[in-house]
């Protein structure tokens, strides 16, 4: 699972008002190189919650992202490169996602988070 997906996911357990962001417990992180597309990165920048993104990348062991970012930084190639790497090239292979409100663990196996809820959580 890429951080792009992580940034979109929230916990939808019944009664949880703010299930975002899910905390990452990383056991194994892999990197897969993909081609950079600046247009996509710029467009996604508006949608991404930067704080959650930076925190998540740190939890994955990548500390190169600045704490805060604004759209003027998108002009810098170096920034784009890091942003691209964290967003699309880091994959959480094994570990867990943890709901910030209830502490419920969603295990991640082979890169697939198990988001199935128990019956009492629906």
């Amino acid at each position, binding site marked *: *699972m*890429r951080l*792009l*997906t992580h*940034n*979109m*996911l*929230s*916990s*939808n357990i019944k009664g949880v008002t703010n*299930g*975002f962001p899910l905390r990452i417990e990383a056991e194994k992180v892999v990197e897969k190189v993909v081609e950079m*597309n600046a*247009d*996509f990165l710029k*467009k*996604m920048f508006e*949608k991404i*919650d930067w704080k959650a993104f930076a925190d998540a990348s740190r939890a994955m062991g990548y500390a190169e992202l600045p704490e805060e970012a604004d759209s003027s930084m998108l002009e810098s190639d170096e920034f784009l490169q890091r942003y691209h790497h964290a967003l*699309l090239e880091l994959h959480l292979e094994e570990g867990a996602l943890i709901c910030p409100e209830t502490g419920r663990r969603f295990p991640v196996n*082979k*890169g*697939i*988070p*198990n*988001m*199935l*809820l128990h*019956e009492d959580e*629906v």
Partner: protein
Amino acid sequence: MASRPELLAPPEIFYDDTEARKYTSSSRIIEIQAMLSERALELLGLPDDGVPKLLLDIGCGSGLSGETLSENGHHWIGLDISQSMLNIALEREVEGDLLLGDMGQGLGVRSGVIDGAISISAVQWLCNADKSSHNPRLRLKAFFTSLYRCLANGARAVFQLYPENLNQRELILNAAMHAGFAGGIVVDYPHSSKRRKEFLVLTCGQRSVNTTISKGKGEDGDSGSDDDSEEENQTVSISDRHRPRKKQKKNKSGKGREWILRHKEKSRRKGNIVPPDTKYTGRKRKDRF
């Protein structure tokens, strides 16, 4: 095998390892899936600006439909309830991210971030209650409201589905409309029983441009669907009505010699007195008569 898998078992059980493998090794299924997802992507009506979009594939299975999205350069997140199908997707090294989840429990996705959603032959599964806790109405509601929430303003969702009957289609449509979606059903090849495909096209919020829903393929009777010719024959062309009586009559051919012989024979068997069959039987009279 029965023609409707959703009547056999819940999806996470039906699509076990063997079924998942079967599904993905059949070249016919692969071709159909690719065609359907191509068409669904077309119906999404994404702006043609060359920027990749973030799409959602609901019921992505082994990632056959996602492959079409990747080929068109988009990023996608796939959701499926069957671990076996997702395992196959991993084997195939699909480019999108996969989630194991139940769409009937609602999508745990942040608001307004998704540019479009497609779903190939998946939503009809929601109409079944596979567990005692399942209520199709509530599950459909949970699904559509959460989908509405996560789609960006003006985004579309396209579902290819095979509704079992009218009630099922109504159930799905009602749930979608209650969630706030606008849109309707696009039917490709409506006259053909085999090629007929239904797509539920839903739009979310307002979009100033291009809110009209595309037309179904083959509605005007192009590209040879099998019942088209019959359909055309039913229309009465005006020129026909104004033709002179004589000409119309001339077109009508008589019963023919065979027909007469057959009926004479039949009458003979009944014991009636019937004139003998000669070379003159069924012959046309001379004009001067």
